[in-house]
């Protein structure tokens, strides 16, 4: 499939603890991942979040790493976005190099050897027949 002038949208329900991956949006220029984050009782005033600049996507459809191009609503390390309470929530998006247009499984990799606090989410299935088309 050629993505010229087309944008694919997947609704997904993948999460790692209190980080939720909600949507994947793909066009010929970029892959956008929309996330939601809910603070918990674990940290005082909800703690903080950021994203490492080396964050990338890996896909079953290619050996190439899809590097992060940009981010919206979140800062890159070493900066930090501090929450104010244990009930705060946050929506943010990460942009990566465009994925191949085919059925695949992708993984978000913030760290190769992650600890529980890193934003690594594995095995997100993206099937072409499950995608919506964005109306441009």
């Amino acid at each position: 499939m050629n993505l010229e002038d087309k944008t694919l949208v997947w609704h997904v329900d993948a999460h790692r603890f209190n980080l939720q991956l909600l949507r994947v949006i793909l066009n010929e220029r970029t892959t956008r991942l929309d996330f939601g984050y809910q603070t918990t009782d674990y940290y005082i005033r909800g703690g903080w979040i950021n994203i490492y600049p080396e964050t990338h996507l890996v896909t079953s459809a290619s050996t190439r790493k899809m590097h992060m191009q940009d981010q919206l609503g979140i800062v890159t390390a070493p900066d930090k976005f501090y929450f104010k309470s244990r009930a705060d929530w946050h929506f943010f998006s990460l942009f990566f190099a465009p994925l191949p247009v085919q059925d695949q499984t992708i993984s978000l990799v913030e760290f190769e050897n992650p600890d529980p606090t890193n934003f690594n989410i594995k095995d997100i299935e993206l099937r072409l027949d499950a995608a919506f088309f964005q109306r441009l």
Partner: protein
Amino acid sequence: MPIGKNAMLRCLIIDQVISEHHSYKPTMKRIIEVCKEQGIDVSHETIQKDIKMMKKDRPNGFGAPIKFDFQQQEYLYTDPNFTINGVKLTREDASVLEESLVLIKCMLRTELGDKLRHAMEKVLSTSIEEVDFNERYPILKTMEPPRSRGYEFMDLLLECCKVGIPISFVHYSYKNEVFKPVVLHPYVVREFENRWYVFGYSAKHDAYRSFGLDRIYEPIKLDLHYKKGNTKQILSFLNDMYGVFPLTTEEPIPVVLRADRLTTKFLSAYPIHVSQVVEKYDFGSSKITLNLIPTMELIQLVRSYGQSLKVVEPKWLVELIRNTRKDEFRR
């Protein structure tokens, strides 16, 4: 009766022909010719009816002083300065428009509202009557809450409701503290107590749902078959509820409240719903009957009055309010 679009067009042509009497003789033949030039096929009788209507006083006509000069066999305005194109606004008209402008400014702070406001300001500016824009304070003031989160999606949502375009967005539930991606076939954008909601068919829930605009993130239009709404259910959402989040029933039911003396006075002045019937008791307290779909907002309203207002029926609603109170104490 309002003047139809076609009749209005013909009236403008008649006005134009009469006003251009220096260039062309304003005859019935000339009026019909100009109509034809503008793609309107019209009979002699229709033009006569239009002229008759134009002569009527406003709002049924334009109060046009049209006379047929039998000697010259032409139409004329007895007041040579008269024209309906650029109708003078009376002081009353201008005042009504000004008041409407205030409301538009408050309620439609969107691109659509801007266009409407701009159009109305143009109308006002063509008025020969003086309109005092330099008032030092407005004489009509509505509540102007600070712009809320999500209001920026208003134009997109209105367009999707109007054209019939499904949307994808991320919704955050304040109560459950989780995010969910949603596909919505939107029908109506509705305001309730200064909060804005979009109502439509949610594919995920396979049901009609309302979503607060403040809890919506990144809506995008989808190239997807649009599921049209059931008009009855949409109207029910708009008319049969106090609020936007229904509890269990889908049809209006009688809800009976008991109000004390003071609350009875307020609720008599500001009814909760159009269906409200107040039966007063001897000492001023009352039984208030509503016929609506019970909502979360109705519960909140009743609770905001404390002991002064209570639900008496249906029993399940009484029970629900009692249990919600217990839950809150636990929290």
